């Protein structure tokens, strides 16, 4: 009776799990819904290993439930079972079959490990240097001479070669729909390749515990068609960073006083005092999110400037709660019109 109930539950679990896998695999950020060749290769391995393992489980569970029903003690049964020592045949059987199954898995594992590690040749694809900080990402395009923060723009169908490092603790770069993850270690560089096969916005996350706001260290990979991407590049190279209204003018001044020691904006007339230690804000007006987690609008930008600690605890940016409403208006107007 007991065995029956637990058998039923396992059956239920598996039915549920297959339903989940089949029907609902397509969530926003699922590894089961790859959008690039790297992630597709991984999905094949995930499926293959799941398949082999499901087979193993079916065999084990089959024997398990059979034994549970067949050999449970019946009332009044007092016989002493035969004390079997073992069986060499069976032992060989359940050694050899797993070895064969694992070999089936090991071969594609090794070949995929090697193919995933193959980086684009020199001159092929796009090169991007990724640097992680608590809790944000910097993307530098060394061949184009531009820098972005939090948003990595790439052309569709091109191999993108990422060279990555961290400025503080260990982080891990993960865009589930595009590729597996790779750690970013301070004092070392790691590399990986991503490629998107269709345009879209792909969410990325930090996957290695990096402090209080680890859960909020999000970023985006934005894949454009080649023309769109070229347009974006051209815009980033010649950004429109001049304030256009009097309010924006005031905002730019405020920026120069309070923000410039950390944030950089290309194409403005600022003299950068030190290296950028915070996200580059060039073309901030084209961003889709604030700080990687808030919806992009004026109200949220103000909230962030006033008290970033409240939104991303442990962040290095100080709060500017002392700004007057007018100052905040000026600053946001300036920032949101950077194109």
């Amino acid at each position: 009776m007991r065995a029956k109930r637990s058998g039923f539950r396992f059956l239920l679990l598996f039915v549920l799990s297959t339903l989940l896998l089949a029907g609902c695999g397509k969530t926003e950020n699922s590894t089961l819904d790859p959008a690039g060749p790297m992630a597709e290769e991984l999905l094949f391995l995930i499926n293959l290993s799941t398949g082999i393992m499901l087979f193993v489980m079916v065999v084990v569970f089959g024997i398990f439930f059979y034994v549970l029903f067949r050999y449970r003690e019946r009332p009044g049964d007092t016989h002493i079972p035969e004390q079997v020592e073992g069986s060499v045949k069976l032992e060989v059987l359940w050694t050899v079959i797993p070895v064969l199954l694992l070999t089936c898995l090991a071969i594609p594992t090794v070949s995929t490990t090697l193919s995933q590690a193959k980086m684009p040749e020199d001159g092929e694809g796009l090169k991007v240097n990724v640097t992680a900080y608590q809790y944000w990402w910097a993307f530098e395009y060394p061949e184009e001479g531009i820098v972005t923060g939090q948003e990595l723009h790439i052309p569709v169908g091109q191999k993108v070669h990422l060279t990555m490092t961290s400025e503080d603790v260990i982080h891990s770069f993960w865009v589930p729909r595009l590729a597996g993850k790779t750690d970013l270690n301070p004092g070392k560089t790691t590399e990986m390749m991503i490629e998107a096969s269709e345009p879209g916005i792909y969410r990325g996350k930090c996957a290695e515990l990096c402090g209080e706001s680890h859960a909020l260290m999000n970023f985006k990979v934005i894949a454009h068609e080649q023309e769109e991407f070229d347009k974006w590049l051209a815009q980033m190279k010649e950004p429109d960073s001049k304030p256009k209204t009097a309010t924006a003018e005031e905002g730019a001044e405020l920026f120069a006083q309070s923000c410039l020691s950390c944030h950089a904006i290309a194409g403005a007339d600022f003299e950068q005092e030190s290296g950028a230690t915070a996200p580059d804000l060039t073309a901030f007006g084209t961003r889709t999110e604030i700080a990687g987690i808030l919806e992009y609008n004026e109200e949220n930008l103000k909230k962030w400037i006033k008290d970033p600690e409240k939104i991303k605890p442990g962040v290095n940016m100080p709060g500017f709660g002392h700004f007057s409403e007018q100052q905040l208006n000026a600053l946001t107007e300036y920032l949101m019109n950077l194109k």
Partner: protein
Amino acid sequence: MATFLVVAVFIAFIALIFTGGYNSDFLDRARKTKIWDWITTVDHKKIGILYIASGGLFFIFAGVEAALMRIQLLFPNFDFIGGATFNQLLTMHGTTMIFLVAMPVLIGFMNVVVPLQIGARDVAFPFLNALGFWLFFAGALLFHCSILFGGMPDSGWTSYVPISLNDYSQGPGVDYYTVGLQIAGLGTIAGAVNFLVTIINMRAPGMTLLRMPMFTWTTLVTSALLIFAIPPLTVALFLLMFDRLFGGNFFNVAAGGDVVIWQHLFWIFGHPEVYIVILPAFGMISEVISTFSKKRLFGYTSMVFATVLIGFVGFMVWAHHMFTVGLGPMANSIFAVATMTVAVPTGIKVFNWLFTMWGGRLKFTTAMIWAVAFIPTFVMGGVTGVMLGTAPADYQFHDTYFVVAHFHYVLIGGTVFGIFAAIYYWWPKMFGRKLNEKIGKWHFWPFFIGFHLTFFPQHFLGLFGMPRRVFTYESTPMVDMINFISTIGVIGMTIGSLAFFYNIYVTTRYGQLAEADPWDGRTLEWSIPSPPPNYNFAQIPLVRGLDAFWLEKMAGKKEMIPSEPLQPIHMPSSSHIQLIISLGFFMSGFGFVFRGFELGALGLAIAFFGMFMRSFDKDRGYYIPKEELENVEKGA
């Protein structure tokens, strides 16, 4: 520090009131109490019970921590506890469950059961055994002081650098971790040495290595693993301690240090650790399944070699925790294939359990239900383990909830289920009373269902892109629903655990007295009274094969054949020196955590003074005279 002093003075004050103050016969009074008897004991059975009880205590702490985390994850963007507290809780939960729950409870069972199973009167070094427990307890207590004084560690149980260095974890939390675990580790090493020597030297006549019960075998292999696995951890903790306390630069990148070396050191310990906490559970399951199937363990010899093989290969797979670090495709391939090989001996074990039950007469006591539930649950954890070993697929799985699901399946479905089986199985031997079977079912079903409800869906959280160790997540319908279900499952596990503690209470007060052999057992521990006298065996038995007691029962005898005449038994005296040594380490640990190096030095001095006292201790134990033994045996 101030809080600590206030609490210390308060405790001293209360203690004085209850003991009636210190005067000439204070020590006399103290020596006669039960507490004094327990804390100075060197009896392996009592020490085992102390281990298990403290494991139970920390299980409550770590369980509450887990529940708090699951509540925080109940809804997306839920505001219950922030990221800082969440990180502290996940660190405490992981560290406590591994080091202060799984390990002590398993070591506790080894203590209680192994000497009885091999027909010995105690372990080889009874004093070292007591010292091992008290060092473990001192370390554990120090670690838990972080809850009250100064803040808990917050960089994960893996404590990766640089997140655990002063720059990024400013409070004393990580110092509690490094110092507390070093002290506890000393105790663990002592225990491991003790078991190795005991098992190798103190088996009853006739008990060859291949006649040892399976649990004793797994204890032997586990002890060997401990001896090789704890030192790398100690080295790592030592380096981290130096970086934090004395400005060392081992992990300081700016000064030429390296951050990846910590991961190597940690996992060279960490992976064998996984087998340290699962192998004894394998042993427990083997005993329980064999007993309640009324059959000899199927393929005993291959089980033994599978155990040894798992222990051996366990040292060669550590880098599968580091596939995403960037070690290069060759290293990843080699470690991936090595990892897969672990599945073969593990599979051998699973099939041998199944075929032990095949053709048997299965009696579903609570112990057996736990053991039976172990098999499918552990297999599910095992197969996801192979999936994780598939290096490139691990680029997706790594550090996601898929991993969380996997290791909870192995650690709860494996270790905890095994421990629960062992508790129901050996409780009568330890305490002379049988745990209530009916409440046992109330323990099992909610816990079992709750467990699967909590952790099965988490596989999908991982696949759907949710990293582990996050205190919140963005709202998407699937992920929200799964997190909600997962938290609901915790209710089941809570009900089950409460039923378990209630069962202990009911049993202790009203439980049915157990006879010497309540389960129709097969091994030597069932041939002596429950609970056993402090000398275990009045006469050391003669062992004539595997399942020695079962063989005698099948031959129509009620008892084992003695291998020696009844003669006076030499027993070790109880001792309080291990308390002094442990107290010294505890004080010194406190000193180092709070950078009070004078206190640190004083504590170490006290510890060394204790060791010195022990070295010149002339107490050589005492003899139980033959007449007393005769009286006891007649009475029994």
